[in-house]
């Protein structure tokens, strides 16, 4: 069985936690997910960063999401002239 990377673990966790983050955290709150679970939250990204540093969590694979924001699942990048 293939081993999931930290990034995949955190992405999968986010998909599962998405609704509860929306329900349990005020809009605009920054929430960090590491090891598949929520490890910290703060009013600003910088505060969250400081908190994560204090906890010794400095991996760039930690997922950070803003409560209340629906991250798009699909983008149309236009640039038709660039594609040709």
């Amino acid at each position, binding site marked *: 069985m293939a081993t999931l990377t930290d*990034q995949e673990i955190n*992405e999968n966790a986010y998909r599962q936690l998405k609704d509860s983050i929306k329900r349990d955290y005020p809009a605009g709150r920054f929430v960090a997910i590491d090891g598949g679970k929520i490890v910290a939250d703060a009013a600003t990204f910088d505060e969250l960063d400081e908190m994560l540093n204090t906890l010794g969590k400095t991996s760039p694979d930690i*997922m950070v999401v803003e409560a209340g924001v629906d*991250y798009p699942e699909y*983008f149309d*990048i*236009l*640039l038709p002239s660039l594609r040709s």
Partner: protein
Amino acid sequence: MTSRASEQRNPYKGTPPRAWLVVRFKARNGSIEELQLLADTGSPCAFIISNSALIRLRRGLTSTSQSNFGQMRGGWLRVEMPELNVQRKLLGYGNDMVVSTAKKSHPDFEGLVGLPFLRLVEYGGDADSFWVRPLQGSGPQLK
């Protein structure tokens, strides 16, 4: 690139000529990296850069999205441009196909800068160049 006070003004570059900007990012280790990015006001993403640049510069992950150029890996990027009153984290995406397509216009281009960044500044263009400057009356944009 020329600077008048805190304006960044760049003559169009590439074939066909494209508007572009130098955007400065601060990596988690404190190092600063500048990327030349093609300016695309139609892009819904603040930045689309190569996957390797995203890994180097990202301060945290966000969810992965899909696009007509394939998978877009998301990450938080710290923009460090105090001269434009922009020092904040913005969502960026990694997609090598977008970068290689931008490079067809000019090999210096390392991706796209889109509307979520451009709306934080005042931007414009004339027959010769494209420029950005701080929003009138804006203070530092920190988030």
